[in-house]
């Protein structure tokens, strides 16, 4: 769709009220799958983390992973939900080869957690309450690779299936419709996903790496004229896998739907695909008879009836709520409101916290994440959190602190780390980027520079120490920037006045 078919965002919001809804899937970081003892691993050789249950082989029977139930209850509690006295699994029947059984084990009328609320903080510091309808347990599906000319579903000749992901424990968090977002709708979308991510990270129940699909968001958007009671027809943009993309996808859908409605058209109720490269959505599958999933109780699995003691134990072990955590961290780190907002708006609170925990100073952790890493991420159209691990950032700041690297060199090392060249120390070694701390090498370069510029040498001797700048420049150039300028200056003054 061309931009001519989009309405200006401000105009769209003036005419229509956006109503949002989200389904966020969280892959739990258990050792094994939801219903079998096969490993829950990422990036392994295809079809090696599979058991007969994962392949739906005849006679195989699922058994519930206790840790996954505990994680799900913890997440439900952290979302402010009630935990079901009795919760059961159901079969969602559909034919698609991403699951070999022709059904997905999910939950239907008895989800493990229901009716909660999540507080989301926006960039102006205001708080929005997002109503949670339910959080239910289910299994992830296998990974399909469509082979064909286009690389997309349309035009594929055949598909390849890897069932390593089939059966990985998921919690799907479903919101109630979110009203009153207005022009803040895209920002609320992003802040909601960032908050869910912070919650699951602080619970320690998922790696929450969006680029790996540990956390995936389906965004529902509908528009209605302001003042109208009846909800408009919604679209569901599937698998939006970064916080930035969630914001963009919601903004795009508002502009697209507004243009259609304004022209007298109607919105088709359908799923839509998000295209990261163009920042657009395209029509997927329309809602149809195929959405009749014929849910029925899963006969192979017994009800989950969590005891009051278990719920109390998990509630007592909950980390502090996100708002309290933010207030505490801001004080601990000694950040100003603006500095903390910067971290918060970048969705980087967990990364900064982990970097500090790994030994970096708060100021350095903030500077790297909101500065160079964010800049590189924007340049690459990626999420900062996907580029580099907090431990590597902490190692980088340590190398700067101990004088092995200058800030400038550290930025080069960071790029090396992001490009997969290894840990910061390894990049320093392979690229030969360490600061030259050998005075002998520096003095040789200084003597060369002084000999080449005798007029400058004379000025320094006459007491005009600022003239040393020209020599520092020449020495840094000779050292390819890998020298500590302050040390070079000291040595120049020593040599010139000897």
């Amino acid at each position, binding site marked *: 769709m061309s931009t001519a078919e989009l309405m200006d965002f401000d105009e769209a919001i003036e005419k229509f009220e956006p109503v949002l809804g989200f389904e966020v899937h969280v892959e739990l970081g258990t050792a094994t799958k939801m219903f079998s*003892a096969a490993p829950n691993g990422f990036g392994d050789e295809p079809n090696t983390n599979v058991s007969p249950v994962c392949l739906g082989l005849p006679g195989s029977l699922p058994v519930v992973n206790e840790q996954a139930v505990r994680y799900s209850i913890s997440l439900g509690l952290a979302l402010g939900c009630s935990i079901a006295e009795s919760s059961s699994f159901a079969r*969602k029947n559909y034919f698609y*080869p991403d699951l070999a059984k022709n059904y997905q084990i999910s939950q239907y009328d008895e989800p493990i957690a229901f009716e909660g609320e999540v507080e989301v903080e926006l960039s102006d510091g205001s708080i929005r309450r997002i109503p949670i309808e339910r959080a239910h347990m289910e299994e992830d599906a296998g990974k399909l690779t469509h082979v064909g000319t286009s690389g997309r579903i349309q035009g594929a000749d055949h*598909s*390849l299936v890897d069932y390593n992901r089939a059966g990985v424990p998921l919690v799907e968090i479903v919101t109630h419709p979110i009203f009153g977002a207005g022009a803040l709708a895209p920002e609320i979308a992003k802040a909601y996903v960032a908050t869910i991510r912070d919650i699951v990270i602080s619970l320690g129940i998922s790696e929450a790496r969006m680029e790996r699909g540990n956390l995936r968001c389906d965004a529902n958007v509908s528009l209605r004229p302001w003042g109208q009671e009846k909800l408009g027809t919604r679209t569901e943009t599937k698998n939006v896998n970064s916080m930035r993309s969630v914001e963009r996808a919601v903004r795009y859908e508002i502009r697209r739907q507004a243009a259609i409605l304004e022209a007298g058209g109607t919105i088709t109720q359908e799923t839509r695909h998000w295209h990261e490269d163009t920042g657009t959505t395209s029509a997927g599958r329309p809602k149809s008879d195929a959405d009749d999933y014929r849910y029925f109780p899963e006969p192979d699995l017994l009800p989950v009836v969590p005891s009051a003691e278990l719920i109390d134990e998990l509630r007592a072990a909950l980390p502090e709520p996100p708002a309290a955590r933010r207030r505490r961290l801001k004080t601990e780190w000694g950040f100003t409101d603006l500095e903390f907002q910067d971290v918060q708006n970048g969705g980087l609170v967990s990364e900064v916290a982990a970097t500090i925990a790994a030994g970096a100073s708060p100021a350095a952790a903030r500077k790297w994440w909101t500065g160079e890493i964010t800049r590189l991420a924007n340049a690459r159209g990626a999420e900062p959190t996907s580029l580099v691990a907090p431990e590597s950032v902490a190692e980088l700041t340590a190398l700067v602190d101990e004088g092995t690297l200058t800030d400038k060199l550290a930025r080069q090392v960071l790029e090396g780390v992001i490009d997969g060249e290894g840990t910061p120390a390894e990049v320093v070694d392979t690229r030969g980027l360490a600061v030259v701390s050998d005075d002998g090498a520096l003095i040789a370069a200084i003597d060369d520079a002084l000999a080449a510029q005798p007029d400058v040498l004379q000025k320094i001797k006459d007491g005009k120490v600022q003239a040393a700048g020209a020599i520092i420049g020449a020495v840094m150039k000779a050292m390819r920037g890998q020298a500590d300028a302050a040390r070079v200056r000291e040595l120049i003054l020593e040599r010139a006045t000897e």
Partner: protein
Amino acid sequence: MSEISEEQVAHLASLARIALTDDEITNLASELDQIVNSIAKVQEVATDDVPATSHPIPLRNVYRPDVVGDTLTQEQALQNAPDDDGQRFVVSAILGEEQ
């Protein structure tokens, strides 16, 4: 009185990817109808205070510890596949998408 219509049978057959002839649809509608009627008789004795039962055995909370167990090898996993590329199952392209 028939409660299961031929349209419902055709709809279910299409959802279940089962090809049925018109005759089969007519026969199945009548057979399913008898089954539904028989089950309705059971419902007559179940009063309002009897909750729906999905499992006949009064067991709950049957769990497995989160410990890795046996897996199949890639070769075993692909052994019964109609087609594979040495690593993954090959399936025909399907118009649709992940659920």
